[in-house]
Structure formats: C-alpha cells, structure tokens
C-alpha cells in the first residue's frame, strides 16, 4: 500500500541575502521555498551559516567553559578571528564591540574602526559587527565602522524601531547589510522593515533578528515568533521574508544552567558538556524554527551542528532520504 503525503507548496520564499563583498569571500543565506529544514518538499539553495563570536575586549562575564577554547586570544580580535576560521571552521565571524559601551571600557569609535580593520585584514570571510547596544553610542560606533569598512558588505547589528535612521543611511551609503532587530514581535519586525524600505534600504540586504531567548529563558517565544514569521514569508509577505539571524551563543551562555560549576550544582552533571548542550539545544531549536545565521560561542557546538547540517543538506544516499 502506498502512502503519499502531498508536498506543501507555498506562494512565497525567503530572500537570498549575500553577506560580504569587496575583499570578502561572500556567504549567501536564505532562498528556501519551504518550512525550515523541510528538505523533503522544498528547495533550499543555501544552508544555514555559522558565525563565531569574538570581542574587542576580554569578555569577563563569559562562562569558563566558553572562554576555554579562546584561551590567549580573548580581547585580541584579529587573532581570535584567525582561530575561529582556521581552527574552528566558522563560515563567518561576529565582532562584538562590547568594549565601546560607556560602562564596559568606553572605547572610542576610532578604536572600534581599528579593531574592525584588523579583523578584515586577518581573515577574508564576511564580518558581522555588533555595537554596544541601543543608545547614542551604538550609532556613533557603527557609523564609523561602516565608513571604515566601506564596500565590505558587513552585517551591522542592529537597528531597531525606535532608532533606525542613522544605521539605515550608513548601510546604504557604505554598502552594508543591516540587521533589523525586533523584540520577539512579528508586527514590529514587519513595521521596522517597512520603515527601512521607506528609508531606501534594499530589502535584499537586510536580516531579521527576532531577538533570541535562550533555552529556559524565553526560547519558546522566539521559537514561535520565528515560525510565524516564516509562515508569513512563505505566504508571500515581502516585508517578513528576510533570512533570520539568532545570537544563540550569547543568550544560551547567559543562563545560570550553562554557567554554574559542577561543584555548585553536582546534580547538573559535567559543566563543560552542560554548557555546550545548552547552546546546542538553543541553536538547533532555532534552526528548526527558521534561523539561517547562527552566532555561536563554543567551537564544539559549531562542529556538532556542522556535522548534522552537512548531512541534512548533503546529497541523499541512493534509494532513500538518508544521508548515510
């Protein structure tokens, strides 16, 4: 007896967005015309891409287990970027300019631009640059960085509904991708993209950051809002069909369950593997919900996700859909 389920066909598709230009080797994400990972019925020209997070100053609050692999290069972004690429196999890197925050180092836009230049010189992959967070310093820093890296197709993280005009203008002027961040809210995600389109931002050069809740800390909200955004995009909504980026590493490693030592919590098991599992569960669930760019902290999380997705998006073995 045969049992065939009709493949689901959709009116819309996710936009393909290319990160990196100029001296970068570009990475393209998106372009799929089905539900996330539904490779059995949709066409997915590009697989999700993995970035590792590096920082301008030593991130003192990072958990020990997340710091370990970066020993010796924390706060040295160029060296960290080289390690992310050569040793850990990242597709791209995210430079988090956390040290430009007035309370966390107060580094100047000039210093930030120098850090970005150093990373661009050290590696040839696309670069995501995350500012110090909402506030006037964010725009000063990212505007200067955008100018410094003119034509390199950075992904600038991020513009929000309350403050998008400056970054929209510099992204257009200097040829960068703009990450549009919304607070786990599909309506605001859409509204922000409409505002960006009105500000002459090319919708093929934006990413949606739906705001990541880590495992145990709001993951379910992010998961469902992403599923709803994906359904709207597949339904043909041109203001919600940008690929989504998730800062899975940062959010997962914030959890006390990821950070606590085995001595503090003996029943919680091995500390290093627990942190990696926390990040892995967060990231894999978000990929299932539609994330196309994952920013991670631990290289082992990246390696394990890579193994799974290489299989997922590789050629099926003859006579079935198993990849082995």
């Amino acid at each position, binding site marked *: 007896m045969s049992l065939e389920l009709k493949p689901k066909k959709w009116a819309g598709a996710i936009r393909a967005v290319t990160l990196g230009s100029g001296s970068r080797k570009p990475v393209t994400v998106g372009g799929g015309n089905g539900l996330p990972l539904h490779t059995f019925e949709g066409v997915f020209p590009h697989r999700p891409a993995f970035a590792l997070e590096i920082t301008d100053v030593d991130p003192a609050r990072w958990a020990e287990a997340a710091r370990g692999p970066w020993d010796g290069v924390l706060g040295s972004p160029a060296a960290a970027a080289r390690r992310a690429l050569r040793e850990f196999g990242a597709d791209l890197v995210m430079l988090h300019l956390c040290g430009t925050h007035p309370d966390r180092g107060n580094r100047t836009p000039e210093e930030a631009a120098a850090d970005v230049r150093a990373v661009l010189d050290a590696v040839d992959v696309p670069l995501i640059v995350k500012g110090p967070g909402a506030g006037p310093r964010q725009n000063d820093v990212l505007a200067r960085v955008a100018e410094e890296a003119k034509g390199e197709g950075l992904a600038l993280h991020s513009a929000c509904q309350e403050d998008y005009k400056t970054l929209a203008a510099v992204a257009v002027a200097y040829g960068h991708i703009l990450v549009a961040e919304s607070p786990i809210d599909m309506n605001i995600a859409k509204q922000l993209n409409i505002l960006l389109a009105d500000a002459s931002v090319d919708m093929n050069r934006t990413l949606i950051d739906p705001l990541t809740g880590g495992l145990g800390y709001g993951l379910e909200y992010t998961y*469902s809002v992403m599923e709803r955004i994906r359904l709207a995009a597949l339904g043909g909504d041109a203001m919600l069909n940008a690929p989504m980026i998730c800062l899975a590493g940062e959010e997962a490693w914030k959890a006390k369950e990821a950070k606590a030592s085995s001595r503090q919590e003996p*029943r919680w098991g*091995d500390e290093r593997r627990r942190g990696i599992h926390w990040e*892995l569960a967060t990231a894999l669930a978000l990929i299932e919900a539609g994330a196309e760019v994952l920013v991670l902290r631990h290289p082992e999380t990246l390696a394990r996700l890579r193994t*799974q997705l290489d299989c997922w998006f590789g050629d099926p073995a003859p006579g079935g*859909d*198993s990849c082995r």
Partner: protein
Amino acid sequence: MPLTGLQIFKLLPNTNCRKCGYPTCLAFAMKLAAGRESLEKCPDASPEARAALGAASAPPIRGVTIGRGERAVTVGEETVFFRHEKTFVRRPGLFRILDPRGLSAAECGALLNDWLGVSIARAGETFRVDGVAIVEAPGAPEAASAAARRGFPVAVLAATPEGAASIAEPIKDQRPLIVPPAGAAPAAYFALAARLGVPLVVAGADLAGLASAAAAASSAGVGDILLEPPGADLRSLHHSLSAIRRGALDRVHPGLGHPVFLRAGRGEFEKAVLGITKFASVLAIEDHGGETWLPLWTLRQNIYTDPQKPLQMEPGVYPLGEPDSRSPLLMTTNFSLTYFIVSTEVEASGVAAHLAVVDAEGLSVLTAWSAGKLSGDRVAKSLRQTGAVDRVSHRTLIIPGYASPISGELEDAMGDGWRVIVGPQEASDIAPFFRDVWEPMRAR
C-alpha cells in the same frame, strides 16, 4: 476533520424542540461545532448523527497511558502542527534506559532509588525521571519489577518476544510499554501486547509500512500503540516525524494517529532535541548525566508551555516561596521574561520573598525606564493598588538596579516612612544581594 456548524445542523432533527436548552437546532449545532456542548443533550438525535459526530470529534492522535498511579505518563491527544496554533498538550515522557547487564539486583535498586530521588524545581514544574526503559537481559525481569514497585512507568526494550513476556507479564497491571527490537517480525509482539493488554511500539521501514503495521496491530487486538519513526539520521528522522504529525492531523491514514516513540542512544543529544521539538511523545534516553537531562527537561518545558499565555504578566504581588511580613519585597515590571528570570533567581536564592509586578506595558525594566513608563508616581500607585505595601511590615522596597534613577522620586511618592533600596542590575546577582546587603541590613 471537525464538522462545521451547518454540517452538524443537517444531522440534527430540525424540530427546534428546545429540549437541549437552545432556542433552535441551528444554535445548538453552532455550540456543538465550537466544542462547547455535547450531543447527549439532544434526546432525538439519530444513530447516524451520533456516529458521524463521534468520528469527527475523535482526537486525531490517540491518547496512550503508560504506567499506573501518580507517576503514570499519558501522551498523545495533540491537535496541532505548530505550537502557536493552539498549544502542545501532553509533555513527552522522558524515560531513562537501564541496562541490567553487569549490575547486581542491589545495584539496580540503588540506581532506581537515585533516579526516584531526582526532583528539580524550575519555573513551576518539577523535573523528574518520568519512566525507566529496561533493556532485555538477564536480571531484566527483576529490574522491571523493582522499577514498577517504585511507581515508575516501565518500557521494555525487548530483544525477543519470550524475553519481553518474561519482563512485562509480572507487571502487566502497571501497563508497561513493549518496544520490539529494530526489524523484528511483529506478529509475536502483537499477540503478546494484545494478551497482556499493554501498549506496544510498532515500526516500519517507511511511512506506509509504519501506518500499515499500526493498523495490523489494531486488528490483532492491540489497544494502545506508539509509532517508532524510520530515520537513520536527523534529516530522515525529521522527515518521518513531520510526515507522521501532518498525516495524523490530516487523517490520511488511521495508522498514523498514534503518539511517537523515539530512542536516543549514547551521545545522541541532537536527536533528543529534535524529538522534543518535533512531536515525539516518549523518549528512551541512554545518557544519564545532568548535562544531558537538564537541557532536555528545560527544552520540553519551553516547547510545551502554552503559547497563548500573554507576554505580559498580570500586575500584582507574587509570593515566591512562603514569604511573611518580614520577607523582602522586590519590584519589577510586567514583561513576562523579566518576571520569569527574576522569580527564577529569587527561588534559587532560597530566600522567600514578595515580588511586586508593576504595569509597565509589558516592557523590561531598562526599556520601561527609558520610555518613561517607570516613574516614581506610577510605581507607588501600582504598589498601593495591588496591596503590595500591606504585605510587609519593614517598609523597605528593593527596586531593580536599572531603575535606580527613580529611587528618590519613588521614595517621595511612597511617603509613610518607606525606604527604597537599589538592588542589582542583573537578576543573577540577586542571591549575593540578599546575602551581602539584605541580610546584614535586616540583622541591624
């Protein structure tokens, strides 16, 4: 497929007799369609109408119970593909695999006692080892009985029908789940599960094979069935899991309308994550460590939370632990995630406290303050309206570190000798704050 009000109306006698309590048959039909009434209230409904309505209202995925008593696990009865469409209702049962090979009966007992003692409170739920999956081996019948005696639901990971019988039969009243090995000839297992009246896992090489195996088990008299999906890797497994759920909801084949069983072997954490997010109902997990179970329990908690719960909390005073009038009183905003993170940290601190949730239009503390939604007047008014001020005798309020700019105006607005103390910016620093600031202050 559920019937519409008009379809149901056509099945009713159309006498408008009012015996059901509604003025017309159409009004009654609409209530039936919405699931708010039962056909029992219509004494004149024809047998055809009862049959049609019964079939249409049967859940697309049948419920199955494993075990008996307080720890029994009931799964199935799901009605949606996406959790935001309604909610996922039956949390999957996470079973821990027990392989008795190389263990004495006493060692098995000690392990089971250890698992029985697992109890981790997190955000209103207690994480436990839901069940024990026993590997067929010498000593397995004793281990299964020992697990059942302790109240654990039991799954039998069988190697042979005879072995399965020897493990399951002595505890058949505890409704153990029988799981045949991969590729086993099913007939003997059908007969065993039917004879003992216990649930059974069926498998198939593909979706069609799986559906027909389930149908054959039903015909052989097995009442409760779980499906083990084909899939050697995550991609093919995801395909199977998605197709089973979609096929069940669309009612393409009755054999697909059962809950799903999944094994996660050593190191197969990713497979367990996929199972929990994508519709598996019982997972037998080989790894025993907290580093595997804590994230999986937490993921299940996230995915099976009702998404219809708003992102905003109801303003009010929430007791954490069992606080009294001498316990600390903390204030935060009514953004659900903020509340959740703060309450989790307070609970973890072991200090009972009152948490006052102030209406800040669902914004986090920093955002609310930046947007001017967290003024001294507004907070003071809310604390009075919700009765927070009457909960404590010490007249001391702890506010979040990010709200420090309003501490002065808030103290003025509170009046009555109230003191406002600025707490930490990050919830993770609440426990040290209680220890280093609150306790010494209270001791004075």
